[in-house]
Each structure stands twice: as C-alpha cells, then as structure tokens.
C-alpha cells in the first residue's frame, strides 16, 4: 500500500534559524521522491518533519488522507532508514526487525513470518542471528532496510542511506534500491546530497537550497530545463559552466550574447530580451566542442589549456578563457582523449548553439515561454 505525502506551508525554526521556509509539496502514491541539495539546505529536517521526529513550527503534513502533523511517529504509517542505520547493537538482525512488530502486539508466529519474508527479499536469511557488529557496512544497510520493510509502511523515508558505503557498493545498493522500489511499489522519500543518486533513483526530484524548494520535477526535466542557476549548477557532473555576458541582439530565432571572449550565437527565441541586458550564459561541459585548427567557426571562443583529466572513455578539459579566469577555468567534457597539448596550449572551443541556458542577474532562468508571455502581456 502506498500513500501520498503532502506538505502545506511547512516551516521549521530552530531558535532564530529558519531551517525550512514555508515548503509546500505533494508526492504521489508510489513515487520515488528525492530531496537533494547541499548540506544545511534543510532536506534532512524536512524528512524528519515527515517522520515526526521534529514538529513543524507552522504548516501541516498529510500522509494519505490523514493530517499527521501531530501524530506520533510510530502511528504515521512510515518507516525510516537512518544514515547511521541506527540498528540496536545488542539485538540480532532478526530482533532488530522484530522489535517494532512485538511492540505492536503481533503474534510471535506472525512476527517470525514477516521477518522471514523481509529477510528473503533482502537476502538476509543467513544473517538473521548475527549482531550488527558482525555485519559489513552493506549488510548493516540491508538490515536497516529490512527493519523498515517488515513494518509494511505506506511511506519509506531514507536519510542518506548510501553515504556510509564505499563507492563500489554504493552503485550496487543504488540498483538494489531501485529494484526494491519497483517490487514494493511503496512511496519512497529519499534524502541525499549526491546528485547522481538523485538523478538515477528519483521519479521526482526536489532540489532544495537554504530551506527553500528551488524546483520540483522529473530528473531529466530538471536537467534540461532548470528553473534557475542553482538547480542548473547542482544537477550534472561536472557542473554547468556560467559565463557572464550581455545581449547584443535578440530575435525570434536567435540571440547573440557578447562574452568577454567574443560573441556567441544561440538558436532560441529571443523575443522579450532587451538588447544590452546583462545575462549569464550556462553551458554544460558536454555542450562544448574542441575545434581543430583551420577554418573559422561560428561560436568559437579561445582559451588556454589548464589541465586535462583523462578518464579513458572521456576527458575533462579545464580551460581558462582569459588570464582572469585561470583560478576558475571552465570545464568541458569530450569523448575520448584530447588530441594534444601541454598546459598553456591554445584551444579553440565551440559552444553548441541549441543547448545554452540563459539566466538573468538574479539567477532565474530566462525561459523562451516566459519571454513569449512577457511580450504578449
């Protein structure tokens, strides 16, 4: 059984600090929602508010049809997997899983059956009699998920569950979690600061920053149409490059932006954009090309090679566009290897005219639709 989760203008203050600022949000039944954002953005607090481990300063929280704002955590129909796993160290895996069920007054056989079923799903059967200290990190993690599963919750809450695992295991458990979600069909709310986890697991991503929701949407929707520079910079690795410039001409089919390194032509609707307006051009690392010497090319900009990180299948090239940007070079990603070049070598780059993002000085994305609207208004 899966339930929806709805937050209505939820605020949380700790003393004078407002950790969560009037968040309204709705998560559909069966959805895999991921709260993502830098540390201190309020994502964990939001999860704890849903769990009932914190009480909101204002607003209300609904799970399914119920207003659970003041309902005890154990009565909300939720289960939580903690970052530290929070397994009771003096109990075996089976006892850890059974503890909550015993408190609910389930019969011994019933408890045993539920524990056995959950253990079977998670391949924990062999480990049921072990204490947490005798488990590896990955096994502890599964035991913690097992404890959540036996409760058969309407909503799973997961607080950075992969952060204590090494990189190889993290990838593996990520896949297991995705399959588990598909199998159980339950609503899952997952907190992470890792945008890769967010992109791969989520059916809906909630990007948070400084206690606010910056944008909500499907992973690729946020990736391709970020609402602002924060979301654009947060999703995608390496992060998007931001280049300051100003509009020199804006037409229905194309916009020209003058950067310090030269003009860049964008194939997009520029209606509503004023000539001379200051903008930030956002270009993802993969939307650059390295040009070979030879004929001049539209949208070519020049820079100097700072560093090439060769990853085999791809290469991350750090390029300084001018002397001032040596400290913060742009990063571009190209398939294969970079043909040649020692640090300091001249590089000519081209920006894909179809894949640029424009942001106003406040960081809000200038969308083509919005531009059109502002014209008709």
């Amino acid at each position: 059984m899966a339930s929806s989760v709805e937050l209505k203008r939820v605020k949380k203050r700790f003393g004078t600090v407002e950790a969560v600022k009037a968040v309204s949000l709705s998560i559909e039944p069966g959805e895999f929602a991921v709260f993502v954002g830098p540390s201190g953005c309020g994502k964990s607090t939001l999860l704890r508010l849903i769990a009932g481990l914190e009480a909101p300063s204002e607003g209300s929280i609904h799970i399914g049809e119920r207003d659970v704002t003041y309902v005890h955590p154990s009565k909300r129909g939720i289960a939580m997997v903690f970052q530290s796993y929070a397994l009771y160290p003096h109990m075996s895996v089976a006892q850890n899983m059974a503890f909550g069920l015993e408190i609910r007054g389930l019969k011994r056989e019933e408890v045993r059956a539920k524990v056995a079923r959950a253990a079977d799903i998670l391949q924990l059967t062999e480990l049921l009699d072990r204490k947490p200290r005798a488990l590896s990190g990955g096994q502890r993690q599964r035991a913690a998920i097992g404890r959540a599963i036996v409760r058969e919750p309407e909503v799973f809450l997961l607080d950075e569950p992969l952060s204590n695992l090494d990189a190889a295991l993290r990838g593996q458990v990520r896949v297991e979690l995705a399959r588990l979600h598909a199998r159980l069909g339950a609503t899952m709310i997952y907190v992470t600061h890792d945008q890769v986890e967010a992109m791969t697991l989520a059916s809906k991503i909630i990007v948070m920053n400084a206690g606010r929701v910056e944008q909500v949407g499907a992973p690729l929707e946020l990736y391709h149409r970020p609402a602002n520079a924060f979301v654009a910079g947060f999703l995608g690795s390496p992060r998007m490059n931001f280049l300051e410039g100003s509009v020199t001409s804006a037409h229905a089919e194309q916009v020209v932006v003058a950067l310090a390194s030269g003009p860049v032509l964008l194939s997009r609707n520029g209606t509503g954009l004023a000539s001379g307006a200051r903008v930030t051009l956002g270009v993802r690392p993969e939307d650059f090309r390295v040009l070979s010497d030879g004929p001049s090319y539209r949208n070519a900009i020049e820079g100097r090679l700072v560093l090439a990180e060769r990853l085999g299948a791809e290469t991350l090239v750090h390029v300084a566009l001018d002397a001032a940007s040596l400290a913060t070079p742009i990063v571009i990603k190209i398939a294969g290897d970079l043909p040649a070049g020692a640090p300091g070598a001249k590089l000519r780059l081209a920006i894909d005219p179809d894949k640029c993002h424009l942001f106003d000085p406040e960081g809000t994305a200038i969308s083509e639709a919005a531009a059109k609207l502002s014209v008709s208004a």
Partner: protein
Amino acid sequence: MYTNRAVGMAYVSPFLIGLALFLLFPFLASLGLSFTDYRLQDRWSEARFIGADNYTQMFADHTFRKSLWTTLIYVLITVPLKLVFALFIAFVLNFKLRGINFFRTAYYLPSILGGSVAIAVVWRYVYAGDGLINQALTLAGFGTVNWLGEPSTALVTIILLRTWQFGSAMVVFLAGLQGIPQDLYEAAKLDGAGPWRTFSRVTLPLLTPVVFFNFIMQSVQAFQEFNGPYVVTGGGPLKSTYLLPLMIYEEAFKYFDLGYASAISWFLFVLIGVITAIAFTSQRYWVFYAQDRERAP
C-alpha cells in the same frame, strides 16, 4: 655520565619507592603477620609463627561472624541502592534542560565532600536525638526516632551516608548515557516504544558495561567502608554497625592484636577478590559490549 636507564629510574623512583614502602611492604607483611601472634607493642623478633590459628580463631569468633554478616548486609543494600539512585539521577540530568550543568555539579558535590570525616560528623548531628531529621519529624507531627541508638536504624544511617555519595557513579552513568547515539532513541520512537520500554530494552542493555564497572567499583568501596561507622556510630549500638574494616582497625590499634587484624584483612581481601571474580565471569550473561572484546587492543 648518566645513562638513559638511570635517568628513567630516577624519574619513576618516587612512585616506585612509595609503592614499595606503603603498599607492597604492608601488603606482604600483613600476610606474614596473619600467621603470627604479633602484637603492636612487640618487637618484630618476638613474633611467633602460629600457623593458621588466627584464621581458625576468626571463624569461631562470634564478633567476627556478626561483623561479617553486618558487612554483607551493608554491601548488599548500599551498592544496589546507590547504583539505582545514581542511574536515576544521571537519567534525569541527561535531559537537555536550562541550567543542567549547575544541577550536574550540585549533585556531584556530596561525592567530593562525602568521603571526608567532616561530613560524617555532620551526619551524626543530622541523625542525633535532637538532630535535623528528628526536628523535621517533630515539626511534621510525627514522633522522633532514636536513629543512632537503635540497632535497627543505626545501620540505615550509615547506608544512607554512603548512598548519598552517589556522585562518582552518577558521573560515570551520565557519560555512558551520553554515549548512546540519539539515532537509537529515534529508531525506538519510530518502532513505537514508550519511555519505559525504550529504557529497559534500549538504554539499559547498552549501559550494562557501565553498570558492571560501577558495580565492581562500588562493591569494593563498600566492603572497605570505615569512616561512616567509625565517626557516626562507633560501630554500635550492640555492634549493629560494626563493619569488618572497623573491626580490623580496633583489633589492630585498640587491642594491639596485629596478627589477628592481618588475618581478618586478608579474609576481606580474598572475599572482595572472589566476589569480583564471580562478577567478571557472570558478565557474559548480562553485560553487552558494542565492540568485540576479543578485537579490542
């Protein structure tokens, strides 16, 4: 030219000399003396070896048997009472409240003062016929109790004196409580465990190493209790508070029978050793260590 070794020895010598002179020597000497009829005023050479006579005399001695019994009762009541009290106060002081550090200090204070003779003297006045407690009882309309004069209540007063000094045990409990991760309490909350179940099923099991430590420390201390009975009751009335350490003291320095006193000392030493050993072997049935002890360095 001094060698490193000589310099090193010079640095540790104050401790080593102190250890040898005030601990090792009396320790071994008393063992030897316990097999002699040595009396305090005698010369060493006058001590005569009498085999295990002191020990056989001890078990036949009515005063010793009564003293041993009183000591066991004293320990059996004092230690659990003190541990429960210390744990309770530690539990309360573990809440995050305004001014909690003041209360933590205030509750620890008796333990700093408590060991001193001065407090035992105060105690005597508190429980005296016209003492604080009787005055309070009178004020409340109850009759007075002859606390120190009645065999049944005299032991209570020295038990309370020791229990009141729960501070050191409390501080250790407090440290133990603070070592329990907050996550576990939150997990218990999500599991639906109420305050009592959380305490009994989560807090207490995780605290057993600390309980064990405190139990050993407090038992060893309680078996050696001397100030209370010596200052407050003088061992009476009717030897109702005549604990073994007091008997050892009186046999040695009042009756000058150092041989006999040494034998009782060694009996007490072995008794404490046996009880500690039993406690240690019982650990695996009730003490839970979060880390494997085998793996610990």
